[in-house]
């Protein structure tokens, strides 16, 4: 009788041990995946900052003005050449 209990317990113990090994393994796999995702998030953050900076650099008012004046031959508006509309006026 006691021999049989021992055998069952031994089997359970082995199973538990194997499960532990397996879960530890999975834990590490998932952890590596998490690491990878986090570093990707950081990289995307940096890319975003870089793009924002590029946008600011390219959208600089000085640059826009030079291009508008020199390449597109635009001139600033003046009130004489502006038609003002009033809402509801006849």
């Amino acid at each position, binding site marked *: 009788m006691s021999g049989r209990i021992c055998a069952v317990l031994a089997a359970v113990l082995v199973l538990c041990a194997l499960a532990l090994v397996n879960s530890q393994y999975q834990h590490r796999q998932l952890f590596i995946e998490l690491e990878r995702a986090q570093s990707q998030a950081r990289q995307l953050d940096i890319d975003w900052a*870089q793009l924002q*900076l590029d946008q*600011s650099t390219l959208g600089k008012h000085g640059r826009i003005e030079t291009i508008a004046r020199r390449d597109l031959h635009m001139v600033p508006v003046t*009130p004489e050449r502006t038609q*003002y509309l009033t809402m509801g006026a006849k």
Partner: protein
Amino acid sequence: MGATPRTAAAKGVPFVSSPVLAAKLPAWRSRLVLFLIFVAFVTLAGRALWLQGMSTDFLQKQGAARYARTLELPAIRGKITDRNGQVLASSLPVKAVWAIPDDVQEAPKEKLAELAKLLNMSRAELNKKLDSDRNFVYLKRQVEMDTVDKILKLKIPGIETRKEYKRFYPEGEVMAHVVGFTNIEDAGQEGMELSAQKTLAGVTGSRRVIKDRLGHIVEDIEAVREPHDGKDLTLSIDSKIQYIAYTQLKAAVEKNKAKAGGIIVVDARTGEVLALANLPSYNPNDRSDLTGVQLRNRVLTDTFEPGSTLKPFTVALALDTKRVTPSTVFQTSPGQMTIGTATIHDSHAHGPLTVAQIIEKSSNIGTAKIALEMPAEEMWEMFTSVGFGQPPKFGFPGAVAGRVRPYKSWRPIEQATMSYGHGISVSLIQLAHAYTIFARNGDLIPLSFQKVTDLPIGQRVISQKTAQQMRAMLESVVSPEGTAPQAQVPGYRVGGKTGTAYKIVGGKYVKKYVASFIGIAPMSDPRLIVAVMLDEPNAGQHYGGVVAGPVFANVVASALRSMDVAPDSSVTNIIIPKDAVEESM
């Protein structure tokens, strides 16, 4: 088997009668063996005790050193943006390239030449850096990522990199004095970078991990101390208006051959500083040849005798205390007036002038006569309550208080000259701030360099009626009869006051000028206060109306349009008389 169990099977001799046992050996031999075995066990036990009990800490530390690593998690410094979210300052990762000199020396010559080229330095410079006894030498800091990748591809032994951040300022010199800059360690040095250092700088985090043989992180040992990135900062600055202000000021400084200049644009409703520019300026991205002159934020840190721009405060006080009305007449003939031993002058003899005309023509004698009807204490209180001589609270480093002497020491001549802005010193930002009482209906609101969400509550200085009367007078200054017809703006009603003052060098007035103009626009519902100052204009003209007035006009015209403010005047053609009234100094 059976009856005789202890019998050696092969020979059939019982164990007890074995001949081997018959041999008598000396007893000490077995005792010796027993003793040696005992000693061996004691040694083992002692060693085990030593390892387990006495040197556990040391051994565990050594073990941890072989698999555990502490990683630093850097925090990124917050961005600075303008009121519309345009980035004004942002940090990007770069790398510092460092070397272990002894290892690098062994690298082939052509590789070192290439390294020097990538680092943008000569071979001699590189060799000088490598010629060191130390184990750690920075070759170059803040190297951009593309270059770093190329350097690492050379695979020179002993060349290592370390992650750091570099701050970029896309707007460059236009925004330099407002935003400021950081040093190589990412700490704010000037401007908002300095004053908001605490919120911009993040908190570095750390984590302790186990790494495997290949350097992969296997797991965290302790709880991770998360890094906290710095908070982003939204300024009150409108980069469009800032650009307009900077370019107009630059044009005026060049045209008038001025030594320096400053301009500030304030939102009259919220107290937000929409633009602040100084000349000469500098490029915060490349500060290799930066001088103190360029660094100076004149709008906040330079005080000057404001001259006539102070007259409206004297007149406002007289109106507010009902001592005069805008139509009260003062005799300003013959253009000079002696108080005690000193004599003050007007540029022309204007004859009898009403209070409104005194402002329009900027008469010193008229203002002095009004001032002498009032006690010194009241004038001092007026100046103090609008912020002159008071420690500024603009949330900006380096702002100065200026100087207003205590009223008890004022002599009548001093009270007279102070009424038109001499013998008193203020900064341009203080003047712009003080003019909020005219732009609003008599109350003073605090200025802010950060975006304001709730409208500030003002502190009443003069009555609403006085403020309205003053606005009418300020508007007359830019009329063809006033001192600053050049400050007129097509399509908008504007007003302001000119100022021209001698500079004091070494305690004496010298023949150098500070020309200024402070104005409000549009007059029907004031939105902007613009203060312009030019230091030592040298191209023949030095009057505030002529030198600073046009800057005001150009900035207001463009700024109001960019803010979508509807024109409140149908006048689109401006008449500037050939011989405008010269203001008194």
